[in-house]
């Protein structure tokens, strides 16, 4: 069925370009899109942009050339992925952004605001420390949209707590091993001064937890990260990770495909579907674990 030509087949064809199929959260969104598309009898062409905005634009160009009926894009970058939106719109093909935004407004947006996730995480840290203490931040890959927005959110909150000091920050490149090494080195230089760690994603949060556990310091340091991947949820349940921020992959995936179908069927649809983040701590973790 992969070879059915979009022009002649009566099934609608939707092109999907995802930020990175090496990221668990994105894979979950993509799986949900697949599942919902199958139920609705829609043909999907799913491609992986491998975190490159350029590649993403090229993929959208290719979708346009193939004459797909709609495009779902999980943008790599706010600005750099924008030309893809513009191109789709110029070609008269509806384009739905899922998970994150682009500067150029798409036909519809389904997702959450990354800045918000960091705000939630940092507020939790501030509360746990009573608004006073030393915080360390582990960044995602520098210059990427998610890193920039999560940093922005964290700094907004820090401004409200003058006694909460950011003593060090460094990139862990979204990677557990890198974050772990980074944390090990920080433990050497700051030792007991560290009160909390905010990591831009769970992978890095888990790396920090590993390093702190090995140094026997986990009890004294609060670690919070974003995404709520299964590993992180398990850690929250065990109490090693203090909190994570849940982003609803299922909702994002299913809403994206539903919005696309509504547009194709000329039904009314919401231009902005916001799916809220949720803080996951030991208290409420049970409802997220499957």
């Amino acid at each position: 069925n992969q070879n059915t030509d979009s022009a002649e087949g009566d099934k609608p064809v939707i092109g999907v370009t995802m930020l990175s199929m090496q990221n668990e959260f994105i894979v979950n969104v993509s799986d949900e899109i697949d599942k919902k598309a199958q139920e609705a009898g829609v043909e999907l062409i799913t491609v992986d942009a491998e975190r490159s905005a350029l590649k993403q634009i090229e993929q959208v160009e290719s979708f346009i050339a193939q004459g797909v009926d709609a495009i779902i894009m999980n943008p790599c970058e706010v600005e750099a992925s924008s030309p893809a939106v513009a191109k789709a719109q110029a070609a008269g093909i509806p384009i739905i952004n899922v998970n994150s935004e682009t500067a150029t407004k798409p036909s519809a947006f389904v997702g959450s605001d990354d800045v918000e996730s960091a705000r939630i995480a940092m507020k939790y840290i501030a509360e746990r420390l009573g608004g006073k203490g030393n915080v360390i931040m582990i960044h995602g890959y520098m210059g990427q949209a998610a890193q920039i927005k999560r940093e922005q959110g964290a700094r907004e909150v820090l401004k409200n707590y003058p006694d909460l000091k950011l003593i060090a920050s460094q990139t862990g490149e979204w990677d557990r091993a890198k974050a772990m090494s980074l944390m090990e080195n920080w433990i050497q230089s700051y030792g007991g001064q560290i009160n909390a760690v905010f990591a831009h994603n769970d992978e890095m949060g888990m790396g920090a937890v590993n390093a702190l556990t090995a140094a026997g310091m986990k009890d004294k340091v609060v670690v919070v990260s974003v995404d709520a991947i299964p590993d992180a949820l398990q850690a929250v349940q065990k109490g090693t990770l203090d909190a994570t921020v849940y982003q609803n992959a299922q909702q994002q995936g299913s809403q994206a495909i539903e919005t696309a179908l509504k547009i194709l069927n000329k039904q009314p649809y919401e231009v902005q579907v916001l799916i809220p983040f949720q803080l996951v701590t030991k208290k409420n973790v049970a409802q997220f674990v499957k």
Partner: protein
Amino acid sequence: MKQTLTTLYRQTGSSYRKRVQGMGTFGILLAFVVICLALALSTPRFMTVSNLTIIVTQVSINALLAFGVTFVIITGGIDLSLGSMVAVTGVVAALFAHPDTYPLIVPLMMALGAGFLMGGFNGLVITRSKVPPFIVTLGTMTIGRGLALILSKGRPVSNLSDTFNFIGGGQVFGVPFPIIILIVVFVLCSLLLRKTIWGRYMYAVGGNEQAARASGIPIAKIKMLVYILSGLLAALAGIVLTSRITTGQPNAGQGFELDAIAAAIIGGTSTSGGSGTMTGTLIGALLIGVISNGLDLLNVTSYYQQVVMGVIIIGAVVLDGLNRKK
């Protein structure tokens, strides 16, 4: 006795010298054609004007870098800093390309200047010290990435003028502008390599540095030249990329160096230096582009795409090798 020799001796048969020149790119061209045919038969969407145009546009950035690294590899060097140079020059161009600030020439010259400086730095360290090009350009790769982030303060530089964005996104008589840049640069690089003394000297330096030295060829100058060319072409790629994604991305271009080197080697440039052609490199870049496009068109699942991509690239070069042996 000497006399008898001179009169009677004659040069023996010259059977082995049938190949005079220019057979080098034939094998990979064949592999390329085979792959194109296979794709054309598998999906009707492949052999359309619009799709082929898209492929060439997409290939242009990698091809520009591959041309630069072809010069470098011919002299026996390597340039791993290409990707970072793309990022730095792209950010520099973007910083000067906001609407209503400077005329178009300014961001272009600034980006090319940045590429010139980075390439010149590579060349200078390589010619002045005994440090292998691999390490020097690996160092520059890291330095460049840092510079791109410093210059952009870690954020994408957006809001670029329409004239600037035309470079990567515009069309002239229906032909995307990057394709025009690609063709012009290809012709210039080919001519430089094949028709000028500098091109000739590059082959000499990479083919036998001692022989080049004994012939009075300025080895250091030629090496400087190729790294600077590599820097300038990376700057051009950075400009096209930035204009195409309408943003200067400090994290752009990661891994571009490997793709570019792969294109050059697939196209027959030998890593040990002294041989290679721009035509080969262009075919190498097109080959990679066509495979990548074809796999998307055939809707091969992304994980399997990587497997198939790797297998086809190895297969194409094996085919090339078999063909050469005959």
